[in-house]
């Protein structure tokens, strides 16, 4: 079993940082629900169940502090969403942040979209490191001066101040989703974005909050006929007219917005054929796609279902070009995983910057990486036990048979409460962020 995975050079993943509380009792609000690097990788945002966003910024290289090169430290934190109540349906609207997506940077400020089940917000994060002093009508402490006592005028001067990072909501996109929003995706035109709930997908303009175009609607006339729901959606990275959405039945539809205002008829339909005689009670549930991500190149897309990750070539609809087993040993545990609801866990997946490797999470705080070129894979663990600075991570192995080797862990000993649902890969470097319940781990490649 190789120690590393990577295209060309083997990666050697080392612990870099861990953020979050250390106590055993995890407050529900602290559970991380989304992790996302921005386009340059300089910023790393997390959202949690309590509706809060924390943004980390990478430290610049500095001769004074060589050890903190590449470390991520808190840059800004704010309350993005608050709990709300839908009086008409007697339902609570959770403040949990389902997704964060960054906008490409166009000026000094940073912008991101964050969404809960019902409302999307555009946040502006800007720095302030100067303030004006020497106002004519105000004192230094802000008190108004008596205008009759002012005998001369002066020009206020800009003086440096301690850096302040401010987050302000610039747009609120509300009331467009009857069902729960599962995805948002910024279009490559940098003007529009899509939001998807269980049954509908809407297209928004970033500047306009009072209207939105419905581009996909799979709600049946009679809800008794409901057979599938939308589970994820994403815009193509280069073609602003193309997007995909995945379903609970394990299918992906690619749509072209040039074809019509309503994209109910797909342009491409991706589905892996299945032998009907092999179907079990669990087949459909474990085939439900929990995440879909285009490769950076735009040529491929990756889907995550309960037990595997599949890479699809956009030019081939009838089957994926690559399939990777994440935790096949769970197939013999499906009954108990159904009973404890774990079978409905929604794992995400991500590509590295060059599309040569993919990563996804599993249980017991394990996460998996697959090298598409060498076909090697590795299982690593996010744990405070391996948290010495720059300590190399040891590969982990789950044993399925009777004989358990030293250092292996048996399937029955896995902790199903320790799930890694959200991971992110730096867009350019070998730095990864892994969310383990209420802790955020950052790992770096030794050769970085």
């Amino acid at each position, binding site marked *: 079993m190789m120690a590393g995975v990577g295209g060309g050079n083997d990666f050697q993943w080392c612990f870099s940082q861990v*953020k*979050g*509380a250390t106590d055993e009792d995890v*407050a529900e*609000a*602290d559970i*991380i629900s989304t992790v996302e690097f921005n386009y340059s990788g300089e910023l790393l945002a*997390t959202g*949690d169940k*309590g*509706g*809060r966003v*924390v943004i980390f910024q990478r430290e610049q290289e500095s001769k004074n502090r060589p050890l903190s090169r590449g470390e991520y430290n*808190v840059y800004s*934190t704010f*309350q993005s969403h*608050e*709990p709300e109540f839908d009086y008409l*349906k*007697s*339902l*609570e*609207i*959770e403040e949990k942040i389902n997704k964060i997506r960054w906008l490409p940077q166009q000026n000094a400020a940073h912008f991101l979209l964050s969404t809960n*089940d019902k409302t999307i917000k555009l946040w502006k994060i800007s720095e302030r490191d100067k303030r004006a002093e020497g106002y004519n009508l105000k004192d230094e402490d802000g008190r108004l001066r008596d205008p009759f006592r002012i005998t001369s005028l002066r020009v206020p001067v800009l003086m440096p101040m301690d850096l302040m990072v401010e987050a302000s909501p610039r747009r609120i996109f509300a009331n467009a989703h009857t*069902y*729960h929003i599962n995805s948002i995706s910024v279009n490559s035109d940098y003007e529009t974005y899509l939001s998807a709930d*269980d*049954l509908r997908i809407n297209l928004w303009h970033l500047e306009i909050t009072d209207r939105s175009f419905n581009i996909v609607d799979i709600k049946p006339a009679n*809800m*008794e*006929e*409901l*057979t*599938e*729901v939308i589970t994820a959606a994403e815009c193509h990275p280069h073609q602003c007219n193309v997007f995909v959405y995945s379903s*609970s*039945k394990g299918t992906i539809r690619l749509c072209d917005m040039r074809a019509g205002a309503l994209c109910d008829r797909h342009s491409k339909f991706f589905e892996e054929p299945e032998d009907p005689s*092999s179907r*079990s*009670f*669990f*087949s*459909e*549930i474990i085939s*439900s796609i929990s995440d879909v991500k285009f490769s950076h190149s735009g040529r491929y897309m990756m889907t995550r279902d309960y037990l595997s990750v599949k890479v699809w070539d956009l030019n081939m609809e009838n089957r994926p070009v690559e399939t990777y087993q994440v935790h096949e040993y769970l*197939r*013999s*545990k*499906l*009954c108990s995983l*159904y*009973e404890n*609801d774990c079978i409905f866990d929604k794992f995400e997946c991500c590509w590295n910057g060059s599309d040569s490797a993919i990563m996804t999470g599993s249980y017991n705080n394990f996460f998996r990486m697959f090298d598409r070129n060498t*076909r090697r894979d590795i299982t690593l663990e996010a744990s405070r036990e391996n948290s010495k600075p720059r300590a190399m991570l040891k590969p982990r192995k789950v044993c399925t048979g009777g004989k358990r080797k030293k250092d292996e862990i048996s399937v029955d000993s896995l902790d199903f409460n320790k799930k890694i649902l959200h991971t992110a890969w730096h867009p350019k470097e070998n730095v990864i962020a892994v969310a383990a319940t*209420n802790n*955020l781990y950052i790992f770096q490649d030794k050769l970085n």
Partner: protein
Amino acid sequence: MEDTKPEETNVEEQKEEENKICLEKLEEAKLKDKYPHLGNKPGGSDLLRKRLQKGPKYFDSGDYNMAKAKTKNKQLPVAQMEKVEITGDHITGDHIPTPQDLPQRKPSLVASKLAG
């Protein structure tokens, strides 16, 4: 990485497939033993509708009174052991809430520990 001949790999792959199907069907049998009334369409309407309605339900006096009126007129049929029943989630109006059902009050908003 194993170094097998193409024909051998095919036979192995077939065996693996058959194994997978066996495991799943074994698990299915286990589940049906525990919950004999489980519907045959697990991915069908009920499961999906439960998914569409996630979130804590609150006491609704309108629903409560309507449900009471329903039970006065007829005996409620023996509930089917759908997945909905197992988790205790119910569509509003079908289940008369009791104080035990009401969720805890949310704690007041504090800063994230990630930023601490």
